[in-house]
């Protein structure tokens, strides 16, 4: 099952109520918000009404909010090549005492 991935690119401020209603029906409230809708003629018709305002792509599955967040996350700037076991501090203290 494939989905439309729809991102609101341009704001609908000052556009007719019908256009804004279509955005509300798609579930788009603010710019750069992304929603997923299953591919259907109904969804396509709604996108066609607001085609000047959105960016659309066809994807295989809908991403979860968590995955969307991961997508937006910048690179950490460091990468762990090999994990080293932690030193056990408490044991060391016992030996010293």
């Amino acid at each position: 099952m494939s989905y439309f991935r729809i991102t609101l690119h341009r704001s609908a401020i000052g556009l007719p109520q019908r256009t804004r209603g279509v955005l509300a029906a798609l579930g788009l409230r603010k710019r750069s918000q992304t929603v997923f809708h299953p591919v259907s003629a109904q969804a396509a018709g709604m996108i066609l009404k607001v085609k000047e305002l959105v960016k659309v792509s066809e994807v295989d599955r809908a991403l979860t909010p968590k995955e969307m967040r991961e997508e937006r996350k910048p690179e950490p700037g460091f990468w762990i090549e090999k994990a080293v076991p932690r030193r056990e501090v408490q044991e060391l203290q016992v030996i010293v005492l």
Partner: protein
Amino acid sequence: MFGAFRVTSPLCGGLLWKTPWRLSRFQKARQRKRLRGVDSVVEILGNALAKKGETLKALETWKETMPTEAEMLPKDKYTMFDRKEKRYRKGIHKLPKWTRVSQRVNPPGY
């Protein structure tokens, strides 16, 4: 003649906003980009529906009647018909909300 008290139209008459009569080349470039964006959305919708074997009348009508960015004449990309203008053409940027509405076809012969 010069300086802060020179006689110019904005200083004499108060509020005066001027809109250039034509688009700059950067505005034209962005206009083409927007046209291509709409074309790509229409294409993606058509491909996705074709894969499912569905059709959409509004989409068919758009594809039949509206030229794509590559098919459009420069005249139609940057200007539009207006019966009140000299030579019946005005810059497309005179259209309210022109960056967010589609205006592609004009009356034949104009």
